[in-house]
Each structure stands twice: as C-alpha cells, then as structure tokens.
C-alpha cells in the first residue's frame, strides 16, 4: 500500500515540479549565461564520450551485419543495413543512454549536494527563482544538445562501420554512402534524430527533479545520483517505445 502511495506521490510531485519549471522558463528574466554554461557542460563535455561510443557501435554493427547478411546471401544490403540501424535505432538510443549516465548523474549529484548544503535555499532567499536558474537551464541544454550529440554519434558510427567493412573487402566511402542512403527520405532520418530532444527532456527533468527534492545528507546525494541515472535511462527506453510508434504512424 505504501509503495502504491509513494508511486503516485512521486508522479504528483514530478507534475508540480514540471509546471514550476515551465512557468519559470517562459517568464523573464532569462538566465542566458547559465544556459550557455550548461550547453557547454552537456554538449562539449559529452562529445568525447558519444564519439567513442558511436565509434564502437559502428564497428560492432558492421561486424554483426556482415556475418548475418552473408549467411542469408544479402551482402549487397550491407550499407543500407548499417546506415538505417545506426541512424534510426542505435545512434539515438546509445547517445541517450551515454548522456543519461554522464549528465544525469552529474546534474542529480550537483543539485542534490546544493540542496543538502542549503545552497538552493540561499538562491531562493536571494530572490532568485531556482527553477529558472538551475532546472530550466539544465533541461533546455539537454533538449538542445541531444540531437546534436546524436548527429555526432551517427557520423562516428557510420565512419567506423565503413572502415571495419573496407578493411575486409574493398568498398569506397562514396559507394558506401550512395548505396546506404539510396532511396532514403528526410522522413527516414530526421524524426529519429530529433526524437532525442524528448530524451533530453526526460534526462534533464528527472535529474533536476531528483536532485532538487533530495533530503538526508551524503546518502541522499548518492541516492539522487543513482536514481537520476536509473530512472532517466528507464524512462528514456520506455519513451522510445511510444516515439518509435509515433514516428512509424506519422512519418512513414
């Protein structure tokens, strides 16, 4: 019974938090300098990670695709299989999970630490809206940066996927791209990339919510960081189910 009431209490509090952030985000004064700092924190500092993850994913998909397609005599489908797998599925999800791990944990722990040391209260006591300064800027930075990071992941994955294939049998980059993207439309690639803005919303919102409601000292900070990553990643994957269906219905 307690578990059920905690479940509804959590969602209710998240709804109120979301409303407070939304109200703060659309009313001036706008915190431009903090937004730019957060864009750098979320974007630039996540770039090396998504580049490495994307590169690894490209090689993995290339190796798996070559083996599987050879078994079915469909080697000619290699380029388009790699391109579609990376851009429509793996690129967005891997980027979301990597950013959720790095940024979600970082934001959750930072805000939780500020909360337990009364720094958030001090911000509020200084007549500054903490929802605007701390939460809205971080969430917006996640929303704006996720699609850009996804493009970086996709580019790296395609590059390393092509290299892995070209090392085994001759395949020029021009051939790989023209074959991979043949017959493709913007509808095939833009919605999967821009759906990551929703991932960004989920990652930022959950991390800020968990951080700003923390209680209980160092243990609370640890819990907030863990919950930010676990819940952020879980909701991201659940949201993907809905988003994929939505894209299939409206963009195909």
């Amino acid at each position, binding site marked *: 019974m307690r578990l059920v009431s905690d479940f509804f209490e959590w969602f209710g509090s998240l709804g109120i938090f979301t409303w*407070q952030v939304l109200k703060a985000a659309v009313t001036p004064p706008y915190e431009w300098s903090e937004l730019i700092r957060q864009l750098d924190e979320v974007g630039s500092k996540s770039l090396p990670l998504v580049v490495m993850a994307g590169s690894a994913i490209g090689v993995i998909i290339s190796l798996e695709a070559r083996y599987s397609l050879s078994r079915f005599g469909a080697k000619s489908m290699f380029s388009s299989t790699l391109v579609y797998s990376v851009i429509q599925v793996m690129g967005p999800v891997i980027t979301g999970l990597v950013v959720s791990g790095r940024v979600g944990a970082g934001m959750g722990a930072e805000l939780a630490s500020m909360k337990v040391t009364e720094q958030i*209260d001090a911000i509020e006591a200084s007549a500054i809206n903490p929802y605007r300064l701390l939460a809205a800027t971080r969430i917006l930075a996640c929303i704006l940066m996720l699609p850009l990071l996804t493009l970086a992941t996709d580019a790296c994955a395609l590059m390393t996927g092509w290299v892995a294939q070209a090392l085994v049998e001759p395949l020029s980059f021009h051939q790989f791209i023209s074959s991979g993207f043949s017959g493709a439309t913007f509808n095939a690639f833009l919605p999967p990339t821009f759906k990551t803005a929703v991932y960004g919303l989920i990652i930022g919102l959950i991390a800020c919510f968990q951080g700003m409601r923390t209680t209980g000292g160092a243990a609370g900070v640890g819990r907030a960081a863990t919950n930010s990553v676990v819940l952020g990643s879980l909701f991201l994957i659940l949201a993907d189910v809905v988003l994929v269906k939505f894209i299939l219905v409206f963009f195909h």
Partner: protein
Amino acid sequence: MTTVYDNAMKQTEPEQNRLVPGVTVENVFKSFGSFTVLNGISLRVNRGETLAVLGRSGTGKSVLLRLIIGLVKPDSGSIRIQNQDISGLPLDRMGEIRKKMGFLFQHAALYDSLTVGGNVAFPLEHHRRDLSKAERDDRVRQLLSEVGMERDIEKMPSNISGGMQKRVGLVRALALEPEILLLDEPTAGLDPISSAEFNDLILKLQRERQMASIVVTHDLHSAKTIAGRLALLNQGRVVIEGAFSDLQQSDIEFVKEFLKQ
C-alpha cells in the same frame, strides 16, 4: 497599558524607528507531520531594532526564520513584511519582498562553485543589472573590506575557515542593502574570539544601516550583546519577551533554567 515589549522598545531603540514595521508574525502555527514546531507564535520587529530568538534545539527557531523569508509556508497565522502579508504570495511576488531581506544561513550556505567574490557578486549580478562590471566589482570589494576579507576575494569557500565563511555569508546577505536582516545561529561553531568579533561586526552594521534584524541563537552572551530585545521559545511558543533584565527578573521556571547556561 504598557507592555514588556513597549518598555523594552523605549530602552533600546531610537525614537524615529519605533513605528516603522519590519517583520510582524501573528499567531503562526507550523507542523511537520504530527510534530508541531510552532504553536501560535507572535512577534514583532521594527526598523532599527534587533530581536534575538532564543530556545533549546528543536523549538522551531530556524523554522521561524524560514517562514519569515518564505522558504516554508505556515499552516495558519499571518506573517507581514513591512505591512505586506506574504502568506500565499506566488514565487515571483515573493521575490520582490525577498530583495528587501538578507538571510545568513547557519552554515553560511556559500555557493561552492563560486569564489568568495563570486558569492558576494551573485545577488548583484541578478538584481542590479544596471551596474557595470567595474561598479559591481567595486561594490564587492567594498563589502568584503567591511568584514576584513578583501584579500580573500579569489579564494574558494572550501579554502577559508568557518568564521570567514560566516562573514562572507553576512556580506552576501547585505549585498542588496536589505531593510530586514535574518541571522540563523551567527556565532555557532565559532571560537570565543571570532564570536566576539562577529558580534561587534553585527552591532556595527546594525548601527550604520538601521535594519530590522532577527537573530536566532543558542548563545545567550551573543544575544544580549547584539539584541535590544530577547524572545525565549519553548515548545513552539514564546515563553517571555523583553530586555535581558526582564528575563533575569522572571519567575518562570524555564526562563531561570535557561539563564543558568
């Protein structure tokens, strides 16, 4: 009828400030779950006056300050800041009221990602956008020099002592030139010499700025040094309110017990 409060006011406050209200708390109740923290508390502090709120741990002294600055909402009763009732004010309207108030937190609550100078500049950057960077920097240096810390402007909060953190917290609270100052345990954790220096600093600022100040403290010596009037809390109620001499003359058992410390 002359009350203890009126007598204390006559003894301690300049005539011109007596009728300028700062903070008025009327019949405020506050509970957390089944635990009642404040049980119908009423207090009043005028401009130029310092009230020390004393009491044992857990009697709701810090909660009282949080209620006054609007970080916590009362269950019932009214809190007025310069005659404006703050109960139910939305966050942005409350922000306007808070600009008139400075709050020193018990553990200073300095922003650990900013330098000492950055902490003091923080409220100015957000509320005094009319100031140029040079003017703001001058103001920060001037504020820090008032507490003898202008040479520590580039240090991080983690690299200065607890007493220094308190002083930075105090000047941050004063950055917007507040008319009301709330101090939560300003001398807690300080050695006797730092404590005496901090008391002198508060007295000096109070003389210069004539704010309405409320100081929550365990430290009776500090309370009688910096405040003209004292209020002793027990079980969420004001047991006695008046000058220190009124507390000394009281027959109430709890007051006698408390003064033995």
